[in-house]
């Protein structure tokens, strides 16, 4: 019989998520990549660096995968890599290509178009891995697909991390 382990697994999932709330390093490459979306509601609220410090009109922690701008990102957060939510780290170059997400800013209730650009030119940062898939599409809809190596059109194809740049407000339900 193979129908008997389900309750254990469910318990494991909730335990796994709970651990994530108390130990940041557990939200490592695998954790957020697989569970970013689920962990997000449980991770709030957390007392770390807050967006108000540097990003007017926003709330939340730009070093956390649950930060609103990251709803369709896929990569390492530049905030953890020497850059910021919308600036590349020193020594890197922002990718010429990007993909676009539509994320809701909880501070004003509006949807914004976010450009996710990889910062190219040096080794993977390997910190604050974050992969979320809200509004994300398969690669045959490339403009909104995050499963593409977007530094591939740069001379240096090395991806250090990924920024989330606000392009502007999205029209509702376009």
């Amino acid at each position, binding site marked *: 019989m*193979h*129908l*008997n*382990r*389900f*309750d254990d*697994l*469910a318990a*494991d*999932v*909730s*335990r*796994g998520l709970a651990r994530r709330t108390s130990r940041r390093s*557990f939200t*490592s*490459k*695998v*954790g957020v*990549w*697989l*569970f*970013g*979306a*689920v962990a*997000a*509601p449980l991770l709030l609220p957390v007392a770390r660096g807050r967006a108000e410090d540097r990003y007017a009109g926003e709330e939340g922690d730009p070093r956390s995968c649950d930060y609103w701008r990251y709803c369709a990102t896929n990569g390492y957060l530049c905030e953890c890599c020497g850059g910021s939510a919308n600036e590349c780290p020193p020594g890197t170059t922002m990718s010429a*290509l990007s993909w676009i997400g539509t994320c809701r800013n909880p501070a004003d209730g509006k949807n914004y178009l976010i450009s996710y650009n990889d910062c190219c*030119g*040096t*080794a*993977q940062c*390997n910190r604050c*891995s974050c*992969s*979320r*898939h*809200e509004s*994300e*599409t*398969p*690669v*045959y*809809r*490339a403009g909104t*697909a995050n*499963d*593409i*190596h977007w*530094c*591939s*059109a740069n*001379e*240096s*194809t*090395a*991806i250090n991390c990924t920024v989330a740049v606000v392009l502007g407000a999205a029209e509702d339900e376009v």
Partner: protein
Amino acid sequence: MPHSISFALSVLGLMLGVLLSHVGHADIAAEPLNRNRPLDPAGAHWAWYLDFNVDDIANSRFVLFDADTARMKGSLGSGAFPTMHASPDGRFYYVAESWLRGPRRIREDFVTIYDASSLQIDGIIELPGARRALMSPRDRTVLTADGSLLLVFNFTPSTSLTVIDLASRTIKGDVPTPGCSLAYPTSSRGVSMICGDGSLLTIHFGSDGTVLAQHRSKPFFNPDKDPLIENGVSLEGVWYFTTYGGQAHSVDLRGEEPVFGSPWPLVDQNKKPANFLASIFTMGKAGPWLPGGFQILTVHEPTRRLYALTHPITWSEGKGDHVFPGAEVWVYDIDEQKRIDRIKLRDVGISIHVTPDESPLLLVGAVDIETEEFRLEVYDAESGDFLRELEEPGEVMFHFQGVSGR
């Protein structure tokens, strides 16, 4: 120090002669250097998996293993974003890969050809222009059904196919494919590609690699409302896909033009529970499930069964279900279009594969969510019983494929 350091030479060239003068009587005879263990003939339960090194995406590898003994049989380093095909005669593996040179990752693209019996390199074809698509879906290269052509999908982000003749190991040219991506083998020497409007572009090639005919279908799914997940499987030339929402689509690619079957639901189309925490306690007992993962579907030809990786929508809250790992593998009779079994997984699964033989095993790439270690688990595909695991499989198993093809 328990053992004496019996000599100290700083130039190794001198070493062996000195060593031999020190050798005395022993129970173990001196063994030869420079031996390779030969590759055994492949067993029914051998398979490859792609170990995608998330710590350094420049360097993935394909690993060959025996699911009966959970032993590794060999491996191929394969650069960045590789794909692998076995020639129909079983003599060669074709690996399309990108080499990313130095810390700045200056890119070069190649198809490396391996002798399947020794895993030694048999040839290398250089792909000019650094254009092949660097993305994780595996259907970025296609070996035509007759084994004569390898088609490489390019994304710059303009889309095209590079045509490689495998008999001469030469590049025959490029075909622009505007708006259409990835590629699936069609008829004996053609491919079909998924276009952004939900249609298929089908291209047939001549034996010299030139384009004989092109055909664009009507849209067969709605990419705005319920996108098709590109990760499909073939059963005797008929392809099966699922949408984000769990609608199964069949696409018959055996003829000149694709023939689309009527969609049917893999999962119940219920509403999702009101909130996440409440739903945890009802998991598995109620509420809708959705397909998700990296290798979501697999088929078993002798029994005509379809296997799908599924999770309760309550786990993902409806956010990014298409890549969310699975709690169970649901088993369907593909002709009756109904579920006939559910296999609970020990750990959440991201990739599934069923061996093609009469006593099939279900291979699962999984994640222990406590330790976050990746696992390669082997189940009996019929009873669903967990059998064994391959230890230390690597970083991320993106997909499995059989020794003789997919």
